[in-house]
């Protein structure tokens, strides 16, 4: 295995590819967090009074709360006063009307990231609502979506143009009082995406937003809200990379999904933020609250995530299966290397009759990393005929890392069927030998086996993401095989 050890070293030494900083003059709020900052953000965005009130209520609650400590994560205390809560790319005009009007430096950044905005929009049929730091700078394919009545815009814009929808649904899935980080987000969220799909409409393209943190020490607090009205369908992609930094950046996003009768929402994420260096210095702290409500009958929400980045990942995309015959799915690949820590999983709350949920989680831990699956399946007394199947597999690469599984399973209905299965193992020598014997290098062999291990999840990604995700898995993983 000396070959392997060499590879460990060479691959572990691989520098984070996407570490560069765009020099753009940011319109920044003063450092720290207080009521004035919240008023500043709200005023900057020209928000209505009710939203400011909501933010302030959240802020007051947040002050009285303590950071949760139940996750299997260790990190130095976060100084919430030592960060900027607002930063927007400088506007040359009142706002870009087309891509030509977008700051060329921004477009350059996307080029480096491999997000050819216009090309992608044209060739792949993807409308991109790109969030650069905290403000949406370009939204394409709006025309086509508008024809169908689909609203795909930034949250700030939605607050102005569709206040009734925002007011009705914002905080209806993740209330401002939900948890410490969601409360913080409610107080200081700057932007994010807003999607509304009208009844019976099938969104013809994958909606996609590339988030990218840029200005140093600017935590990002996106707020995303997706509403699929009766009988509609939408697939949403979220992907991110971040520049290299020595200091930890805080990220506390909230994503809310609402699916009405027979509607379906598919939400896919590739998260590849800066994970910190080999010594565990730096990296993003990612505390995210994602939750979907299957409100309507036979509605369906599916979360797919590939988590390879961040120093700390704290994330539990969940489904509240309220409507009868509704369905929730969670497919996850979480990879931790070096000193990364991930505590991620899902909650499936079965409320309606004949609700079904499926969980497939693949955790891969290497280096000194810790990877935890934490999940809850709860069947309430009225959830007649509910069904859950959970499969959690962990792979350990190296003897300094940890892999943990903490599922909570609660059934209060005798007609419900719940099955949970978890395994932990390492890459089998036999499989490696078999692949090597057929002429594959160790690197290729490991990549093949690991991609096979993750297959059940990766196949649920939309085409646009699948290729990128496979490469990402390979890069993140092969780096530590020995």
């Amino acid at each position: 295995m000396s070959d392997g050890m060499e590879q460990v070293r060479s691959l572990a030494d691989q520098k984070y590819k996407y570490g560069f900083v765009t020099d753009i003059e940011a319109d920044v709020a003063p450092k720290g967090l207080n009521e004035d900052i919240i008023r500043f953000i709200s005023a900057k965005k020209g928000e209505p009074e009710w939203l400011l009130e909501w933010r302030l209520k959240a802020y007051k609650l947040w002050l009285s709360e303590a950071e949760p400590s139940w996750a299997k994560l260790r990190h130095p205390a976060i100084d919430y006063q030592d960060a900027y809560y607002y930063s927007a790319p400088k506007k040359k005009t009142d706002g870009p009307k087309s891509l030509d009007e977008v700051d060329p430096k921004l477009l350059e950044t996307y080029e480096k990231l491999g997000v050819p905005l216009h090309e992608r929009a044209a060739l792949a049929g993807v409308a991109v609502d790109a969030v650069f730091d905290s403000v949406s700078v370009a939204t394409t394919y709006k025309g086509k979506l508008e024809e169908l009545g689909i609203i795909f815009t930034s949250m700030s814009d939605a607050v102005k143009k569709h206040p009734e929808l925002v007011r009705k649904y914002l905080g209806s899935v993740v209330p401002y009082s939900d948890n410490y980080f969601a409360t913080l987000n409610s107080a200081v969220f700057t932007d994010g995406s807003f999607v509304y799909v009208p009844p019976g409409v099938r969104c013809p393209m994958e909606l996609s937003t590339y988030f990218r943190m840029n200005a140093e020490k600017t935590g990002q607090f996106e707020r995303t809200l997706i509403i699929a009205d009766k009988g509609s369908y939408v697939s949403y992609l979220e992907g991110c990379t971040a520049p290299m930094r020595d200091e930890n950046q805080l990220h506390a996003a909230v994503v809310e999904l609402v699916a009405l009768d027979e509607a379906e929402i598919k939400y896919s994420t590739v998260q590849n933020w800066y994970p910190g260096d080999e010594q565990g210095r730096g990296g993003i702290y990612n505390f995210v609250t994602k939750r979907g409500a299957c409100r309507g009958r036979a509605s369906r929400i599916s979360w797919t995530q590939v988590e390879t980045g961040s120093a700390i990942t704290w994330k539990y995309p969940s489904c509240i299966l309220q409507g009868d015959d509704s369905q929730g799915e969670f497919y996850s690949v979480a990879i931790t290397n070096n000193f990364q820590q991930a505590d991620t999983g899902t909650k499936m709350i079965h409320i309606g009759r004949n609700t079904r949920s499926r969980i497939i989680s693949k955790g891969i831990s290497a280096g000194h990393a810790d990877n935890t699956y934490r999940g809850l399946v709860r069947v309430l007394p009225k959830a007649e005929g509910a069904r859950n199947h959970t499969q959690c597999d962990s792979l350990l690469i190296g003897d300094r890392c940890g892999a943990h599984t903490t599922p909570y399973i609660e059934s209060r209905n005798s007609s419900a069927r719940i099955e949970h299965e978890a395994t932990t193992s390492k890459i089998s020598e036999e499989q490696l030998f078999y692949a090597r014997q057929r002429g594959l290098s160790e690197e290729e062999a490991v990549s093949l086996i690991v991609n096979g291990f993750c297959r059940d999840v990766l196949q649920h990604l939309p085409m646009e993401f699948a290729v990128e995700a496979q490469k990402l898995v390979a890069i993140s993983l092969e780096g530590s095989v020995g």
Partner: protein
Amino acid sequence: MTAASHPDWLESLRRAARAKADAAGLPSRRDEAWKYTDVAGLGVASFALAEKPQGGPPEAVPLGDAIRLVLVNGSLVASPDTPLPAGVVVDRLDSGFSADLVQAHLGRTIPPDAKSLATLNSALFADGVVLRIGAGVTVARPIEVLSLGQAGEEPLAFHPRCLVVVEEGGSATLIERHQGSGTYFSNSVLEIALASGAALRHYKLQDEAAQAVHVATLGVSLAAGAHYDGVLVQTGARLARHEVHAALDGLEASFALDGAYLGAGQQHLDTTTFVTHVGPGGASRQVFKGVLDDQARGVFQGTVLVQRGAQKTDAHQLSKALLLSPQAEMDGKPELEIYADDVKCGHGCTIGDIDETALFYLRARGIDEATARHLLIEAFLAEVLERIEAEPVRQAFAAVVGERLQGAHATRRIDDHRQG
């Protein structure tokens, strides 16, 4: 309780435990390990500490040819007939004769968690019992510890305590039975220290009185090549919790614990296990099967921790629960915490009703629904009961289980089905 009679070392141990327990109080549902079980809610804190019982030992039929000890309300009332087989010592925990052995092992198999009820037991146990199986001794006759709870008008609390030490290469079978009448809180602690190559088979039947609260903490430490093989059957008590702490310290130790539990009425049956693999090459297996009727609630929490050095560990755990009534509830939390890479670990957990296809299969062969359901439940539990090697013990445990299954609940359920 005659505290003055304890030797100094034991008295100071008890005082320290008392101080800890008083400061910590009873665990509540805010404590993660007690998330699903509210032991304080049944008012056990106000139960009076049981006095030493008067009169002779109660009459009870021993299991087969077992060597038997009887505890009534935590006090030793009947010691086994002498002579004991060579190499077997049965003694009180506070006797001078076994002081060295007891000091070396007492309290060592259970983590010093102030909130645990084992700490309360250390503070308050009446007569403790120590069993020693000498090096290389194989004891053919099983050793039985029968714990009886006898409460009259007033609810009582008592704290049975046992220490079992099996020295190098020794081997024995231990039977533990808990029964009683009235309202009482039995908070027992059993510690088992297995030296290298030692083996213990341990069969426990918890068939406490219907209004009893039963909390048992079992600590097992396993040196190199030691084997623990346990079967736990829970049918009694209003609320019961069986908490296990097993540490596979030595190389290639093995631990197997299977459990069956049957809950009806308002019963709350909790099984919580912590299995820690410390030494390399260890194997652990756990299979728990529960049947819950009426408003009964089952809890299974199982943590398998594989420490950094415990390479080549093979750890498996399975929890299966049948919910027979719409009001029954099952909560499970099987946890894996793995820090070694070359391991095979897994857990499975299922909750559901009786398999419809199996039921249909039997019905299609002319078996009526009541019998078919009964057969399937019996078969479901049989896997666990069959692991009891000692024939008379298996028969006795199976008889209790069978009786429960024949009970009114099963019949009522079938009537419901017919009407439905």
